[in-house]
């Protein structure tokens, strides 16, 4: 019983992590049609920024953690906005090329991080409480999982509110479909694109700092290793559907946990299988709109 509880809650924690990574990706992909391969790099950079700050401050206090989260978000937002401004903007309406630019950026940036911070994992410290456990129905649940879950919920609510209460979502959905027509309605669509990219980047930066605490390290590969799951979650959830991504994150993570535990470590195979099945049965994903 306690094993099941443990699997469920840690699965939820892992799902929260997946969602933190996928949220920005899904936002950008859903609205702009750009499958952002550089998202992992935004994440990594956020994590490094958080760590650089933390090692200059008192490594394991809550204040440091919060400061590094804020800095991670800011760095992520800035870099993402710059990416949009310098690279993506020039290629509007050319989705594949936009994707390719992000592929190039991912390659180059990871190499650059390796040059700057080396290839080894750098271990991070966090407030004591995060590495302790809380007992729930006999299962010793690591506390940082609760932090993940809380942050994921906040991010979900934040982005949903952004889309609901501002015009940006509308402008960008329209702009992706027919950019020149949006300008022909008197709207400066470029600004909206930059804003959305920045928000996606902020989510990535936040996710990066949190991921570094989840794993206990930062390394140039940190973001890339999570990216593929973020893709899978985004697609299973339905392209552009945040709620879908949230549901898919949890489903994928819990499935992975159970398969790893009970079926001889076949977690990733199961996830891949799930992806294939979902797409073949329902090509638009769980909550995706019918084309």
């Amino acid at each position, binding site marked *: 019983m306690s*094993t099941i509880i*443990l*699997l469920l809650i*840690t*699965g939820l*924690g*892992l799902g929260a*992590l997946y969602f933190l990574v996928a949220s920005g990706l899904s936002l950008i992909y859903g609205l702009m049609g750009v499958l952002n391969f550089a998202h992992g790099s935004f994440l990594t950079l956020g994590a490094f920024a958080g760590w650089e700050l933390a090692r200059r401050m008192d490594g394991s206090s809550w204040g440091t953690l919060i400061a590094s989260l804020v800095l991670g978000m800011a760095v992520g937002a800035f870099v993402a906005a710059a990416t949009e401004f310098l690279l993506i903007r020039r290629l509007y309406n050319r989705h594949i090329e936009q994707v390719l630019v992000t592929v190039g950026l991912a390659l180059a940036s990871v*190499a650059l991080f*390796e040059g700057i911070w*080396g*290839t*080894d*994992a*750098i*271990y991070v410290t966090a407030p004591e409480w995060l*590495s*302790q*456990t809380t007992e729930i129905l006999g299962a*010793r649940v*690591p506390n940082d999982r609760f932090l993940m879950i809380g942050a994921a919920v906040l991010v979900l609510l934040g982005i949903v509110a952004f889309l609901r209460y501002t015009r940006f979502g509308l402008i960008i959905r329209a702009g992706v479909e027919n950019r020149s027509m949006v300008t022909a309605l008197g709207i400066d669509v470029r600004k909206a694109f930059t804003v959305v990219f920045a928000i996606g980047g902020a989510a990535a930066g936040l996710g990066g700092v949190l991921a570094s605490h*989840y*794993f*206990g*390290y930062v*390394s140039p*590969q*940190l973001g890339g*290793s999570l990216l593929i799951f973020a893709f899978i979650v985004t697609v299973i959830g339905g392209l552009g559907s945040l709620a879908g991504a949230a549901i898919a994150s949890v489903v994928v*993570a819990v499935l*992975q*946990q159970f398969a*790893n*535990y009970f079926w*001889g*470590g*076949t*977690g*990733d195979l199961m996830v891949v299988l799930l992806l294939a099945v979902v797409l073949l049965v329902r090509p638009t994903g769980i909550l995706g709109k019918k084309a």
Partner: protein
Amino acid sequence: VDSGSGGDDLAPVDVSVITSQTGPLAAYGEAYLAGFDAGLDYATDGTGTVDGRELNITITDDAGDADKAVTAAKDVIGQGQKIIVGTVSSGIALALAEQAEQNKVLYISGPAAADGITGVNDYTFRSGRQSFQDVATAGTFIGDPAGKSVLVFAQDTAFGQGNVAAATAVLGGQGADVTSLLVPEDATEFTPFAQQIVDAQPDLVFVAWAGATSGAMWEALSQQGVFDSVPVATGLGDVSTYGAYGAASDQISFLNHYFGGATDNDANAAMVSYLEAEGKQADLFSPDGFVAAQMVVQAVREGGDDVDAMIAALEGWTFDSVKGSITVRAEDHAMIQPMFQVSLVADGDSWIPELVTAVDADAVTPPVAE
């Protein structure tokens, strides 16, 4: 033109070092190369020559990519070079071993730990230790293995499975009951597996883990109370990993290939001071480079330009090196060498290793590869 004449003997000898300078294993590559320089300095008394012949060393970056390594190897072999040294990744080492055999040149592999490199062919030697020796050292933590239960906790990769196989062969051969718990390489959540270890209650858990996820893995073991109920042994990695064990650091029994303060002998002193002069630190894989350089010098000194003679000179060769006296076993080119039991002790905010005991080379001799 006038081959065989005395002038020819003084021609420089080309040695090609192929290893990672960039890519995921760049840090290992760097330590290895630094050790190699130190070894060369030591073995040639700082002259860089063997019997008056200059050793002309070229270093090629394989960037962790077998394609690049093979291309580089073919290039130098095509130029007529006879000695190839290096690489930190087992896959690339096996690829180079294959080239060595096909083209009948000498190959001395680097830190790559795969047991499969031992005895793979006549042309391939190794300068480091292999997984068998790690596992056998782990076995020394439980005294006589007979009747004990050993759980190997490893990643489900060739490296992990290799360790399981080694444990089964070495410890199982001594009467231990060896089981394994293999975790997918890409897994990020280890809590449930930690639970499984607690449930299994073995006499020893041997953890064979590589890569950045080790921090999270150790934390999960701590959190689930593995250390409270089961003795845990694992290999101590390079300096950059000392922080990975977290709260569990002083509860783990470490086996170790080498760390900066493991030994006290001439070769070690020479290496440490050479590295320090270069602003570097002696680390896990420094001896591998050092040994490789010694072997190169021996091969050239005894074998000249004749690969078969080089092989003959190395097979069965016993010599003093950083880790003490070590032997190249003639049958399969296994490197018979001592290993270490180590513990981590707190040093301010960080951890440093402390030698518990040196394990005799004979006690951890791998079985002869067929």
